[in-house]
């Protein structure tokens, strides 16, 4: 994520810092998945079979074995990338940024015989600079791991399954909702932030909402009335940051402020999946092409700043106004997400093509920077012979700036005719990415993005007579699982 400099305008309005929150590359906790690693002997044993291991450090010098006795599993992953813009933006050139994730989970059944409990604690170490902040000023930021440099607690929750067939589970504690809500598994292969946590909640919710690298105290219930359908409902603190002013990450540098002083953020999502456990399939039914469809909404009861009107009823852009935005109570949005496999190789079923799309909007244009966003794309697993573990993806995203913000820009242009203030409208980007699995523990991911109308048509602060030019972004990401 990061603070986009158009936030100077929003901050002037007294509203939330405008930001695009993200979701980092998915990280599996090793003990619960099939991932092979060598059983290294001694402290350097892991070096003997780096081509086979799923973890660079193998058994972590025996630490995994010790933890397993207590039902604990541990995963550590580094994501590093160099991204740069060859054209457009306010500056050109590359930047480096990186993220170290650590997740520890305790299975209560394995630890002390209590069925269905899972304790999860994760932490982040964020390093490097942010291309989107420094060079791009795009709404839909280029990388999902961009964030303020910090070492912080991310999630700390306990999940308990209950009811027959584990039809329900309840999760309590510090949660990052992007890990469960509005989620698209196919979108997770891309680098751009929007494929993780979409723009509408990123720029409209207080603090960008409880998404990477932030999280929120709350409670979430999942219930499966039938196997094909799951209902998720969660209530969280209305703001993941302890204050409404400034950069929410700086307001909670370690992620341990646990604010409960805001309103409430409610998420409800209905998921339909095929195939469902128990479903019957008949001869001739064709290839099993899995899909998941989700619809949902969120509502936040916090105060939201009007994007155009001040507390006196005047235009915020008017020199006669008092500059304090009118506050409105509550905000909401509805959304839909679809992930659909459309083809698989009959001989090598690991080769498959899936499409996905996410659409989200809010009618509350008066209090939001963005009132609509969409992203989608196509993902091809195993695109080349002999490269069954590689993935290629082509995606695109669109964000629409709310009419109130467009009107504010026009108001500003009218009241300050000597200052070039284009009316922001929308921003579009496309992304082409290829995830090459060099080893099971090491992926390399070249990435190309092109951003049209960055910031929705924002004036270039370096060349105030022109808009920020369209940007060609290229880079390389790597994931290393320790």
């Amino acid at each position, binding site marked *: 994520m990061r603070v986009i400099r158009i936030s100077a305008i929003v901050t002037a309005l007294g509203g939330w810092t405008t930001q695009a929150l993200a979701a980092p590359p998915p990280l599996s906790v*090793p*003990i*619960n*998945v*099939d*991932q*092979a*690693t*060598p*059983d290294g002997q001694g402290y350097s044993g892991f070096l003997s*079979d780096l081509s*086979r*291991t*799923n973890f660079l450090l*193998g*058994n972590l010098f025996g630490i*995994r*074995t010790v933890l*397993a*006795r207590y039902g604990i599993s541990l995963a550590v992953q580094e994501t590093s990338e160099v991204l740069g813009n060859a054209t457009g933006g306010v500056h050109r050139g590359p930047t480096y940024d990186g993220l170290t994730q650590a997740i520890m989970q305790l*299975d209560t*059944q*394995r630890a002390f*015989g209590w*069925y269905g409990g899972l304790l999860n604690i994760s932490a982040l170490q964020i390093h490097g600079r942010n291309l989107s902040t420094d060079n791009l000023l795009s709404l839909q930021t280029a990388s999902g791991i961009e964030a303020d440099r910090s070492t912080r607690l991310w999630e700390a929750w306990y999940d308990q399954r209950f009811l*027959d*067939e584990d039809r329900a589970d309840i999760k309590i504690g510090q949660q990052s909702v992007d890990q469960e809500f509005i989620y698209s*598994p196919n979108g997770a292969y891309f680098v751009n932030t929007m494929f993780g946590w979409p723009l509408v909640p990123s720029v409209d919710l207080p603090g960008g909402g409880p998404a990477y690298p932030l999280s929120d105290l709350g409670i979430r219930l999942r219930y499966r*009335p*039938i*196997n*094909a*359908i799951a*209902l998720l409902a969660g209530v969280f603190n209305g703001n993941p940051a302890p204050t409404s002013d400034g950069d929410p990450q700086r307001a909670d540098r370690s992620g341990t402020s646990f604010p409960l002083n805001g309103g409430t953020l409610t998420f409800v999502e*209905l998921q*339909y*999946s*095929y*195939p*469902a*456990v*128990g*479903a*019957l*399939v*008949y*001869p001739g039914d064709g290839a*099993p*092409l*899995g899909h*998941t469809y989700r619809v949902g909404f969120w509502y936040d009861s916090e105060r939201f700043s009007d994007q155009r009107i001040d507390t006196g009823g005047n235009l915020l852009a008017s020199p006669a106004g008092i500059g304090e935005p009118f506050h409105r109570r509550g905000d909401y949005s509805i959304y839909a997400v679809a992930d659909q*496999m459309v083809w*698989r190789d009959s001989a090598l*079923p*690991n080769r*498959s093509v*899936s499409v996905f799309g996410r659409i989200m909007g809010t009618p509350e244009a008066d209090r939001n920077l963005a009132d609509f966003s969409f992203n989608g794309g196509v993902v091809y*697993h195993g695109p080349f*012979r*002999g490269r069954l573990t590689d993935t290629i993806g082509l995606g695109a995203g669109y964000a629409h700036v709310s009419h109130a913000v467009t009107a504010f820009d026009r108001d500003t242009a009218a009241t300050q005719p000597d200052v070039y203030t284009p009316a922001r409208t929308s921003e579009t980007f496309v992304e082409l990415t290829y995830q090459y699995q060099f080893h099971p523990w090491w992926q390399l991911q070249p990435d190309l993005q092109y951003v049209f109308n960055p910031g929705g048509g924002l004036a270039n602060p370096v060349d105030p007579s022109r808009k920020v030019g369209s940007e060609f972004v290229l880079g390389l990401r790597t994931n290393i699982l320790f």
Partner: protein
Amino acid sequence: MTNDSNACFAAKAERISTAGAGQHQRAGLATCVTASASSGAKVLRFFSRTALLAFCLLGGAAHADPSAGFLETVHRHATLTSTITDNGDVNPYAVVVSPVTAGKIAKDDVLVDNFNNISNLQGTGTTIVGFRPGTRDTYLFAKLPQHLPQCPGGIGLTTAMAVLKSGWVIVGSTPSRDGTTATKGDGCLVVLDSSGRFVTAWAGPNINDPWGNMGIDDHGASATLFVSMAGFGVPSPSVLDPATGLPVVVKKSIVLRLGLTIPDGKPPVLASQTIVGSGFAQRADRDNFLLGPTGIVLAPDGTLYVTDGLDNLIAAIPDALTRTTSAGTGRVVTQGGLLSWPLAMALSPQGHLLVCNGKDGRLVEVDPAAGKQIYAQWINNDQAQSPPGNGDLFGIAMTPDAKGFYYVMDDVNTLMRAGGR
């Protein structure tokens, strides 16, 4: 929740698993529509009914098949326990139900072994977990050493496991040092007592990586076991067939019949070995270690059914208890269709074969007499794999009441029960 919407739940639940009957399906849809039309204004009720109606419509295209099978009676899929042991072994393979109470084992206990160690290296798992359905207790039945002098290559426990009526446990080992066939050993069949203690191991020229689930004919004082051997001549997975770009296929796998005598109070003695099937396809695989014949079922008429995953078929070997020669690869019962790399297998009360797919999360029901695939049921739908459930299934065993079956889910290392309560 009103009664009519509960009826909808019930009707839908039936439709999911009983879509073989077209009448049930239509009745379920009608009930759902009625329930939805009469819904009130309350939000929760609205959402639940809308969801159900949507599911009714989305699922309404399911086919009907008049053939009665076993899987349409299976409605419930419940997690029983984690199969991870305190040493971190993972990747559950064999699932067997004990016919006897002896030592650590109680009758109807479920035993599950692990093929991988904590580092998830294939061919290095050394543990067997026990689960007691009556109390829901999970216990460590056996933890073997990584190396045994009697077992060439070491220990990596496979789908080949049986509990005899006399309480002895026989389990196959297909060992590796680096998790691939490049370092595999010939393995052995390990004999454990009913307390999980090592007694002896059988190795020899006919025993080379005992792999698939066992067929068994147990009379107490004597028993006959059928095991597939999938390691003969299998090279490293880096040895590729230029035509396919995949590891080379070696058609040397066999099905071995083992004649055991079990003296009273003494360990079983391996009295005879007969190759009853041979020439089955096998090859190395980086993701799955080894592909070869994995499912074996001995039918009451003496026919032995074998899954041949690489050729995507089920074969029948006649007179398996008595024949003295190899039947080769036998007769093809069914091939392709719903099968997708068939693995372990069980026999339903109707005499149908229940076959776990390796390449998706479906269990296929086959009428072997008619050579007909009836239908398949999704028992693992993990969409992290492509297709869903790919690589997640392996072992299977019928429950003692024959109303359901036990199976394992590799993706989450759990023992499941389907059907009954």
